[in-house]
């Protein structure tokens, strides 16, 4: 692709091109957003499923794991809003629930924050008093109303963990993204990150990490590894995906993907988790190491997935290959350069 040296750049080369082009629309902000949403929904679920909400400390009377979940989703949502071209119009993101996964995500974020917030509201402690303790449900879901709120919040949390992957996977424009493996990876990564974070909170709170938790973490991380590898091995020659794979495995993202995601972000924590399940003495330390590896690994997985989003050429000529392209602005603005 010619870039024109110091003269005017080819102004629309990024939009229409006969060469594969990398998407540059979503990048770091979206990777942070995706990660926080995954962790936010996952920590709530992990805390509830592992029945660890009550023993790991409280902030204002609310279990620490729930507070972390709310903060992660609120911050992730705020990043998304700030990243919009027109942030003050953010409410319109709720409109197109019929087809848009972003709308589904916006609703699931909202429903989760409202319902999970309501769920824990009776436990809220302000200045030694519990002003909402009269509300008629148990904040830990031990009665009918509390359990109903917990289930609704849990379903919303699953959508929160998954929808970012679905946003990428639905359109066919970018072959690397257009696969159920992407939302599956995001879901498994969110689950693994969240379980490891809950275990980190356990260690900080002085509670012992159980062998079962380590096995669960190992299974989730191993499943994530399988999902990543399977995605790498399907439709390898498809236009666009072939370029994505080239960049992941041999190109500029090789080091980060192979070592950051493939080894440190999945393989190593999976091994350490299974080792920790059988080594009671080292279990807490291994749980902390797993968390330190998995959370950055999950973030890198999302960031790299975004950065290898490559569109195939809009048209593949029947003969020969395009060697260069030119644009009218360049042609008109610098007549005679070519």
């Amino acid at each position, binding site marked *: 692709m010619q870039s024109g040296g110091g003269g005017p750049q080819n102004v629309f080369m990024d939009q229409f091109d006969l060469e594969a082009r990398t998407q540059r629309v979503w990048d770091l902000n979206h990777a942070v957003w995706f990660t926080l949403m995954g962790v936010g929904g996952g920590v709530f679920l992990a805390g509830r499923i592992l029945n660890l909400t009550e023993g790991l400390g409280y902030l204002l009377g609310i279990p620490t794991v729930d507070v972390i979940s709310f903060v992660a989703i609120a911050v992730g949502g705020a990043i998304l809003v700030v990243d919009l071209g027109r942030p003050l119009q953010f409410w319109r993101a709720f409109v*197109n629930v019929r087809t848009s996964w972003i709308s589904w995500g916006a609703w699931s974020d909202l429903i989760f924050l409202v319902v999970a917030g309501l769920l824990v509201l009776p436990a809220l402690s302000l200045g030694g008093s519990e002003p909402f303790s009269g509300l008629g449900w148990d904040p830990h879901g031990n009665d009918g109303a509390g359990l109903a709120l917990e289930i609704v919040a849990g379903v919303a949390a699953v959508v929160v963990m998954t929808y970012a992957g679905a946003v990428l996977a639905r359109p066919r424009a970018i072959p690397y993204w257009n696969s159920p493996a992407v939302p599956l990876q995001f879901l498994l990564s969110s689950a693994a990150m969240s379980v490891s974070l809950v275990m980190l909170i356990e260690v900080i709170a002085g509670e012992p990490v159980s062998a079962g938790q380590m096995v669960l973490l190992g299974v989730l991380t191993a499943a994530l590894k399988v999902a990543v590898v399977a995605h790498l091995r399907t439709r390898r020659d498809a236009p666009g995906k072939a370029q994505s794979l080239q960049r992941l495995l041999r190109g500029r993202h090789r080091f980060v993907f192979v070592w950051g995601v493939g080894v440190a972000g999945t393989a190593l924590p999976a091994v350490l988790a299974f080792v920790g399940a059988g080594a009671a003495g080292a279990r807490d330390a291994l749980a902390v190491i797993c968390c330190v590896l998995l959370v950055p690994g999950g973030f890198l997985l999302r960031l790299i997935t975004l950065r290898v989003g490559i569109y195939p050429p809009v048209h593949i000529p029947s003969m020969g290959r*395009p060697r260069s392209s030119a644009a009218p602005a360049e042609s008109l603005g610098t007549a005679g350069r070519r």
Partner: protein
Amino acid sequence: MTRWGMVIDAARCVGCQACTVACKTENQSPLDAWYAPVVEWEEGEFPDATLNYLPVLCNHCEDAPCVTACPSGALKRRDDGIVIADEEVCIGSRACMTACPYGALHFFEDRGTVSVEGAPAEPAPSVPERYAHQSHVRGAVSKCTYCAHKIDFGIENGLEVGVHPLATPACVVTCPAECRIFGDLDDPDSNVSQYLSGHGPGEVLRPDAKTLPSTQYVGLP
């Protein structure tokens, strides 16, 4: 049912870029946003080298992924098949841009204003309705509309769409090689249907994306 569409005979294109400039002039598209450029590429080696041209624009897909992805409902497919972006409704999520296989959507980033001597730095505060399509919203996405304002004007005034210059997309009107034909794809007697029947079935860009484009090609290199 009317389904407006465009047939581009790529073999006729001479690469003059008149369509690119006509579109820019007609729609006053934002800085860096070119709705209808002509892509050029070389093929072969000297002395057997050729220069190929491919006019491109929004494909106004029947199964438009941009419409599906848009969370705010700003992108809509009209009953006549034209896909439009309502910039006032757009929130700037750019989900449409990642979903479009053709790169046909353009985000109007605030990169300051172009300084042209004598020209106002900002758009006039009130834009006459006739020129509303030339007013763009910062932080929103814009795109080719097949010059829907011209088509609507033509229908309101009884002009033949795709034939009368005031009722035909600017790129079609200005093309000196007549490589763009615009009309009703659902009408077997329309100029586009007739052209397709005389030049073989239309091809589409990125057929793997299965978007059912209304912009079709003949004579693709």
